[in-house]
């Protein structure tokens, strides 16, 4: 198996440059949105809320809000990264280059992961301004954030190849990811839901992701961490296989 590090790095650098060129859209805007959540739900409303599972409400919502931004931004970033060249025609260069699926993914997904981590760091620092919190398993949290970022970067990549209009590009994050994250226990513990909603909520895969991240933060979770981790790894593997098939068949890439 060939792997051309220079090619992968060229793609990575370009994607990072694109992010910094559109710094307002890709960094400032999600940070601003998340800050508003912290102000309203964390400081103002959170002060009147009971602690959830021993965690003060303001701190409780941090992992969920982080997940909300991470999923949305990583997905749309990666999808945009591959959709734009398809839309403008510049993808000819990638297709004609001695570059395979491994380099392409390393470049695009690597950049999406990096951006996800930068974003996460900024959001956590911002959260600190509004609420106090301690991270129970910092290393685990970092690894978990990277895994989620990688998975949804791959997912976004698939989305960007599937989409044939800007509308389709925006529809999945807006109509699926955001609602599922909101309903996935960002603002409450799924265990506190009345039956049968607690069981129904577990049909939402994102509830597992939020729960997993919350475990790395506060050592408390709605579902066992092993389940969250397993689901994340499974999603990562699934997306990788789908992309390998896309490259093999040339679907929507090569006529």
């Amino acid at each position: 198996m060939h792997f051309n590090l220079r090619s992968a790095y060229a793609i990575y650098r370009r994607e990072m440059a694109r992010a910094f060129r559109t710094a307002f859209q890709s960094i400032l805007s999600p940070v601003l949105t998340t800050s508003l959540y912290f102000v309203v739900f964390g400081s103002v409303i959170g002060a009147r809320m009971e602690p959830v599972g021993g965690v003060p409400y303001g701190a409780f919502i941090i992992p969920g809000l982080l997940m909300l931004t991470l999923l949305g931004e990583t997905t749309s970033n990666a999808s945009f990264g591959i959709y734009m060249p398809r839309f403008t025609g510049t993808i000819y260069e990638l297709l004609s280059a001695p570059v395979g699926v491994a380099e392409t993914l390393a470049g695009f997904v690597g950049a999406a992961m990096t951006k996800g981590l930068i974003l996460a760091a900024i959001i956590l620092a911002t959260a600190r301004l509004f609420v106090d919190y301690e991270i129970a398993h910092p290393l685990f949290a970092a690894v978990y954030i990277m895994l989620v970022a990688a998975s949804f970067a791959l997912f976004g990549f698939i989305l960007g190849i599937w989409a044939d209009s800007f509308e389709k590009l925006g529809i999945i994050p807006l109509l699926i990811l955001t609602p599922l994250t909101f309903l996935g226990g960002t603002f409450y513990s799924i265990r506190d839901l009345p039956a049968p909603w607690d069981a129904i909520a577990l049909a939402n895969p994102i509830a597992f992701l939020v729960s997993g991240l919350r475990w790395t933060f506060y050592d408390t979770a709605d579902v066992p961490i092993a389940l969250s981790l397993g689901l994340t790894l499974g999603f990562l593997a699934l997306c990788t296989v789908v992309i390998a098939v896309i490259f093999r068949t040339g679907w929507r890439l090569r006529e």
Partner: protein
Amino acid sequence: MHEPVLSIRGLTKTYRGGTRALDNVDLDIRKGEIFALLGPNGAGKTTLIGAVCGLVRPTGGTIAAFGHDLARDWRAARARIGLVPQELSTDMFETVRRAVTYSQGLFGKRHDPARIEEILRGLSLWDKRDTQIRALSGGMKRRVLIAKALAHEPELLFLDEPTAGVDVELRKGMWDQIAALKERGVTIILTTHYIEEAEEMADRVGIIRGGRILMVDEKHAMMERLGTTEAVIDLSEPLAALPPAIAAFPVELAGEGMRLVYRGGSGAGGGAAEVARLTQALTRTGIAYTSLDIHDSSLEDIFVGLLGAQEVSA
């Protein structure tokens, strides 16, 4: 004869929906030549390039570049091939230098600022190196695409309609740049529907239509084989019939006997000598004429003739 740089056998491409864009194409490209692929719109030129460069998946046939089978050794082959597409698709917000640097890296080359400077200077883009591509004119964008394609120093370069939408003056400049690339040993395949362009630049010409290569030959040989000389002689007095003295020449009467039209010879120039003999015969016979127009058929005439013959046989 050297092994061809590019060897295409039985290449076929049928698009979904049934359009057969390429139909059993065989083609060999020689090292160091400029090969012009000439054909009308929709003839399959861009599909042929796409199949070699990895943009199009062939339905059948084989392609080998530098001895590498493209289906298997595509990495080794693609690293030595460059493509300048027909559409001006560039990353509009990128600066010229960054765009070219990206191309160099993408093709696996070590970052080489000196080489990039050389390429940009060669294409008169150095002054614009830190300008965003969207701010450039169409001709400059085209040159940026060429610079990007040259960044990995390809040995085989595809130029898809390099002068489409480029005005006459810039077109000459483009031709000079392509000639300079050939000087450096780059093998060039260009597609065009400007016959003038093929005639000006190419060593060999392939005529493609309906996904089939109708003919491939040296430009001069093609002219020789298919070229003719045409002479139009306006007479002082109308002729009712061809006098015996000139009936042996390939001439015919036109314009109600006021005009003699000669068609003969070949692109090699035999026609002009024969027209000279014809005029002597006219003088000897006492036929006076007021004007004489003589010209060799261009590649364009050949092209139109070939396509016309196709239509008749089809």
